[in-house]
């Protein structure tokens, strides 16, 4: 590994120089949204020896632990994003239901008597004349726009679809990241076990 893009650990010991484990050597490329894929180690011995000088188990475990913590942090972010979407979607659906209700009332030709939130604990009575066919939608950033019922419905449904699409993406990323976390954990265990067995074998051959 001649030119690592980012080194995860560099330990200088007195007798020998140690391998630089780059992020690329322990990952297998990235998924479509730039999350690195953990490399699955078919054979740990060959993998350790593929570095020059051969990487020590501590180094490998260190590198994978770092990767593991990065993934964990990213998973947290994604879970939060996913929770926000879970909240936003029902809100949009409620707005759509409201506009549909008003539209229905307009077609029936009746007006609607409603109680709306005047202040935190006070509701005020209002009579809404549906024949106008106008709603005002809050677009955020202190902006409110006037729409006809149909325009409002199409805007809200397109918002809903966009939110659903992004929610799906976040869920996919979350699944992918969890897979990488599990793979990294298993890799760490296997490197550790491999090292234990190796040391045991060395002891056995030495005592013979």
């Amino acid at each position: 590994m001649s030119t690592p893009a980012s080194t995860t650990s560099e330990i200088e010991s007195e007798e020998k120089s140690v391998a630089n484990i780059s992020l690329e050597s322990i990952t297998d490329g990235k998924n479509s949204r730039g999350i690195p894929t953990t490399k699955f180690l078919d054979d740990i011995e060959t993998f350790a020896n593929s570095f020059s000088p051969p990487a020590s188990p501590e180094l490998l475990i260190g590198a994978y632990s770092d990767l593991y913590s990065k993934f964990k942090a990213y998973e947290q972010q994604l879970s939060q994003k996913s929770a926000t979407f879970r909240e936003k979607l029902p809100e949009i659906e409620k707005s759509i239901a409201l506009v549909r209700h008003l539209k229905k009332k307009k077609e029936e030709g009746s007006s609607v008597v409603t109680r709306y939130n005047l202040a935190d604990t006070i509701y005020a009575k209002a009579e809404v004349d549906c024949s106008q066919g106008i709603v005002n939608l809050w677009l955020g950033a202190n902006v409110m726009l006037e729409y006809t019922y149909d325009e409002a419905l199409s805007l809200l449904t397109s918002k809903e679809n966009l939110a659903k699409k992004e929610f799906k993406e976040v869920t996919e990323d979350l699944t992918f990241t969890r897979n990488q976390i599990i793979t990294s954990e298993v890799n760490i265990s296997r490197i550790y076990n491999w090292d234990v067995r190796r040391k045991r074998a060395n002891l056995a051959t030495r005592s013979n």
Partner: protein
Amino acid sequence: MPEGNGMILAKEEENDAEVRREDQDKINEFGRLNARLYEVREEISSLKKLLEKIDDASTELMMGNGDRVMLRLGEAMFEATEDEATEFCEAEVERHQETVDKLSEEESEILERQAELKKILYGRFGKSINLEEK
């Protein structure tokens, strides 16, 4: 997992089966299904609570005296006749019940697949792997 639950096996209990890529994939699938299982269970429980609330509301409606009732859509309340409100409640109940049924189905599918994976992985790794809930 090294620090995990401190399960150090006796030498005889150690399982030397190497973890192959397909095993890794199965382990990943199990973890993925587990996460999804928790999500599904949470959704089912919150929907069930919602259904209970709507049920209570419908009961109140039935006991009502034929007056106009307030129906809450979003943040504002609209005056509606008892019939309209009952209709609305029934439609909501149907909608949510459908979702609950679908989710319950998904839950049992997940459990089935997890049982299959457990059998395969325990068969392969014996005590070296732990697939139980905490």
